[in-house]
């Protein structure tokens, strides 16, 4: 026993180091999977408030770019407005139809903190559970998919962006409909890769990649990027497709969060099948 205590005393620095290092690793690897606590992320109110102050200072740097982008979106919307159409058939009556029901609702948000140079990049946005944001919701802009909500607090949320190791958004090639998963290798924030496309299909450069839909997160057809290069993987009947992200994550400031009204219904049904 005395030997044991002497041993502990002799090696106490090493033991403390190993213990603390173990805690650090445990925090790191458990956060990647399940964000249990929000106090140590930028979703918590203290960090969120500090970052909001900083964003108030720096958000004007990209103002002109963002104005141009909003103008473009406005024009697109304006073209769908009835005032920009000439009625071709007079006398038709507009009725409220019951054929279409809203499935997706979009909540606008501003990014207050973001990185693009790390291995796993997270964005913090200025809305949280009080605005109806929940873990697992999709986030996108008009140019492309951004990521999935990873963690929320009352007024802030953290997005796990496309620039992370494992995001698992299912995407497909527009036109042929061949689908795969989105991945990022950690090197270039403009280039992502698509896995799981079998190499008996001809994939052309500049093919558009869009979301596949049906994964309960994104509606079908939200742009992701365009194919940049196609190479074969050695020993596997699959293509290694590299594509350019539609959204430039280095400049991104305003995003939309997707709320899926039919999520519960679909999940219940799928759980019944699994049981």
């Amino acid at each position, binding site marked *: 026993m005395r030997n044991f205590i002497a041993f502990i005393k002799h090696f106490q620095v090493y033991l*403390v180091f190993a213990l603390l290092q173990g805690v650090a690793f445990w*925090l790191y690897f458990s*956060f990647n999977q399940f964000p249990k606590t929000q106090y*140590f992320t930028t979703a918590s109110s203290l960090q969120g408030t500090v970052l909001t102050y900083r964003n108030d200072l720096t958000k004007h740097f990209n103002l002109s770019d963002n104005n141009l982008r909003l103008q473009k979106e406005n024009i697109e919307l304006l073209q769908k407005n009835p005032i920009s159409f000439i009625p071709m058939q007079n006398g038709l009556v507009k009725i409220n139809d019951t054929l279409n029901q809203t499935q997706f609702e979009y909540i606008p948000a501003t990014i207050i903190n973001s990185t*693009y140079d790390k291995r*796993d990049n997270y964005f913090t946005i200025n809305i949280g559970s009080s605005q109806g944001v929940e873990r697992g919701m999709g986030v996108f802009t008009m140019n492309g998919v951004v990521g999935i909500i990873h963690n929320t607090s009352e007024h802030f949320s953290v997005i796990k962006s496309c620039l992370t190791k494992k995001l698992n958004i299912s995407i497909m090639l527009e036109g042929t409909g061949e689908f795969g998963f989105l991945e990022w290798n950690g090197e270039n924030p403009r280039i992502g890769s698509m896995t799981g496309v079998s190499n008996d299909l001809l994939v052309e450069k500049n093919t558009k990649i869009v979301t596949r839909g049906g994964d309960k997160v994104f509606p079908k057809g939200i742009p992701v990027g365009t194919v940049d290069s196609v190479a074969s993987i050695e020993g596997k009947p699959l293509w290694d497709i590299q594509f350019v992200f539609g959204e430039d994550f280095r400049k991104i400031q305003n995003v939309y969060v997707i709320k899926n009204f039919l999520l519960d219904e679909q999940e219940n049904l799928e759980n019944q099948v699994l049981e």
Partner: protein
Amino acid sequence: MNGMILNITRFVVLLFVQVLLLNQIEIGFGIQIMVYPLFIFLLPMKMNRIPLLFLSFFFGLSIDAFSNTYGLHTSAILLFAFLKPVIFNLFYNQDDFDPSIEINILNMGMMWFLKVFGTLLFIHHFWFFFIEMLDLNKVGFVFQKTLLSVPLSFMICILLQYLFVKKQK
């Protein structure tokens, strides 16, 4: 008492310089500037190793809280704090080492600082990037990140010391 206030100030200043300023500078090529180890390095040499480890754990956790890395910076700074006395002893020089003197570049000289802090910073950065990537196929990329980032971090550390540290008489 004065030293206490000084160190708390350094803690806060380096924390905010790191998370609000340097974390946003993203040059490309995987460069990431990290100067916060300077806080641990400037702590007095006579400080006990176990409180030092706990302090660096807490400091790393604060950095992590603002960077969404959640344990990564903590792990790297713990290694830094653990190896600090080891590297010190490695470059120990009987003639010009006085334990009461404050450790910084002005008191210790450029060469000494380059050897000791350079080595520690390299280990810190390499550990950080390696755990972040955690892929043996990408060791080359990890080295690229480390070798490009360390000189930049190092230069900013020197700059900070010349600006904010006084020479001891």
